[in-house]
């Protein structure tokens, strides 16, 4: 009598949740309402049934029914609000597994366990989760997200961020898991004040939105003053729907100011470079520019100013005169002036290149010894590093030294991140030069991961990335091969 409505209601509930995940409009609230309604009905039905069974002294059956009927509805809530805050990673794993009897229930269990570990980290928990993760072959989004949470549990947010984002490239999709990744990324970005990251993710609908993510997206849109920003009232609604309202109070208020001030001002870049007074001689001016460049947020403009100032200072007669006079007074060895000029040029180029590399700046359009030297340094430095990294990757495989799938993935995303950073700074020309080597290594590794390791999702992600790059640089041969590789069917656990 109960079986049919229960199955029907469970299906309906899941449908509502799935529908909500795909939405970022007022439908989001509607589907949330529907899901809540069904959950309430199911809850009432289940409690009635359980009560009846107890009444009939069939208490063992009653307990079984609690497990069967109540867990799928209250499971995720229990995980989020009880087990995770307690750090009960084992229970979270099993409850996660139990409440999602979908096609691949352990995926959610694994991430739930890693989440519990991230909230209350202990060494044994990390090992336990890692062991469960490594047993799951081939690699999919849940493994990557669980690994990200483990990194976060050690306080390594940068690694966690990178790994979370990388899950997006994998074709295996567990919405339950992905939405958690999206929420983590949103919370992390909010903590750092990187509202544009949240807005971008929302715009691209990269991750299914949990109520908390949806609220933070609203805050981001309002802070950035974007056209699609929710109204004041809607933001309040999103806030009400999301958990942890006590802690999000402040964010909501900051994004819904009563006065006319625009919240977008918060994002304003402090990019002012204190321009050196023009009356100074070239050398002090160069040093002042250098100082300003190394202390304030580096930008291409300030780099250009510094480079030009140095080129002027080092060719300035006054600098040469001062050096010559002082060299004589100090009794410096012959040739000291020329050597000093060369050394200063090297030191300056080194320092500028280091800062520019760190801030992913391109080479400024300035022609002079320092400008040209810096451009060459940045370009070759970036290409050399990329080539070295990609070569080592293949060499390692060639030497028969194989890593766990997750580590192969981490190596790939590290290389890909470095590649992206280099081409962002170096522009289209550098991209064209960097591509052939990355391509030959990448296709080799993708083929090996597919053929030998059966890591289909991983291999596909690499091929997909290479295809995108090939399209960007217009390499016809690579495009052709890329299409062929990407068209291969990728088996995932969701197919079972």
């Amino acid at each position, binding site marked *: 009598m109960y079986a049919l409505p229960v199955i029907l209601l469970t299906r309906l509930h899941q449908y509502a949740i799935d529908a909500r995940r795909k939405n970022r409009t007022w439908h989001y609230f509607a589907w949330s309402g529907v899901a809540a309604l069904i959950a309430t009905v199911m809850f009432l039905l289940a409690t009635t049934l359980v009560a009846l069974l107890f009444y009939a002294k069939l208490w063992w059956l009653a307990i079984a029914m609690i497990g069967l009927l109540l867990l799928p509805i209250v499971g995720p809530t229990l995980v989020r609000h009880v087990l995770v*805050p307690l750090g009960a990673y084992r229970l979270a794993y099993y409850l996660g597994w139990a409440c999602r009897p979908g096609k691949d229930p352990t995926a959610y269990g694994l991430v739930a366990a890693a989440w519990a570990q991230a909230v*209350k980290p202990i060494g044994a928990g990390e090992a336990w989760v890692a062991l469960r993760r490594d047993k799951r072959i081939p690699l999919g989004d849940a493994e990557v997200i669980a690994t990200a949470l483990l990194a976060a549990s050690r306080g390594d947010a940068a690694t966690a961020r990178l790994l979370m984002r990388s899950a997006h490239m994998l074709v295996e999709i567990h919405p339950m898991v992905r939405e958690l990744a999206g929420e983590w990324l949103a919370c992390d970005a909010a903590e750092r004040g990187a509202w544009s990251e949240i807005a971008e993710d929302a715009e691209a609908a990269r991750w299914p939105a949990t109520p908390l993510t949806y609220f933070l997206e609203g805050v981001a849109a309002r802070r950035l003053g974007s056209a699609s920003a929710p109204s004041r009232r809607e933001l309040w609604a999103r806030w009400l729907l999301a958990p942890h309202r006590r802690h999000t109070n402040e964010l909501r208020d900051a994004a819904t100011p009563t006065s006319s001030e625009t919240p977008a001002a918060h994002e304003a870049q402090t990019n002012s470079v204190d321009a050196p007074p023009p009356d100074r001689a070239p050398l002090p001016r160069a040093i002042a520019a250098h100082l300003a460049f*190394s202390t304030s947020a580096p930008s291409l403009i300030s780099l250009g100013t510094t480079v030009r100032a140095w080129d002027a200072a080092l060719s300035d007669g006054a600098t040469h005169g001062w050096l010559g006079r002082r060299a004589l007074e100090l009794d410096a060895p012959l040739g000291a002036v020329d050597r000093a000029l060369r050394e200063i040029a090297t030191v300056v180029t080194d320092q500028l290149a280091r800062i520019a590399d760190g801030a992913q700046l391109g080479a400024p359009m300035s022609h002079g010894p320092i400008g040209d030297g810096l451009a060459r340094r940045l370009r070759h430095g970036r290409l050399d590093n990329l080539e070295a990294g990609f070569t080592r990757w293949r060499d390692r495989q060639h030497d028969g030294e194989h890593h766990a799938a997750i580590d192969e993935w981490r190596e790939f995303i590290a290389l890909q991140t470095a590649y992206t950073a280099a081409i962002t700074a170096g522009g289209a020309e550098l991209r064209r030069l960097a591509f052939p080597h990355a391509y030959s290594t990448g296709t080799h590794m993708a083929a090996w991961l597919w053929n030998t390791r059966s890591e289909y999702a991983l291999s596909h992600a690499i091929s997909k990335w290479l295809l995108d790059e090939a399209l960007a640089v217009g390499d016809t041969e690579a495009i052709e091969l890329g299409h062929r590789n990407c068209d291969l069917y990728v088996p995932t656990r969701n197919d079972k």
Partner: protein
Amino acid sequence: MLEDNPFFVLGLPADTSRIEIEREAQKLLGMLELGFADTKTYQTPLGARPRTPELVRAAVAALRDPYRRLIAELWARHAPAPTTAERATDPAEPSHPGLRRSLGWGP
């Protein structure tokens, strides 16, 4: 060359004589060894930096060599005055510290 400029490390002007430099370095090394509080940092145009015996030794060795002194002077003489101020606000500073934890994502 600004951060660890020998003249800044020793806290001396760029026209100091050799013997003065030696004397100051010897004094600083003694004071560092005995833990004099006011010797533990030095001022540079980039802000205060911690002073160590290795830095003092390296500074005095550099200034003994006429060529390296020339380079050190070039920077020290033409740089803006050293400041005690710490570096301007660090852009990596989170704008809502601890938010991720309070939203249930620990640790």
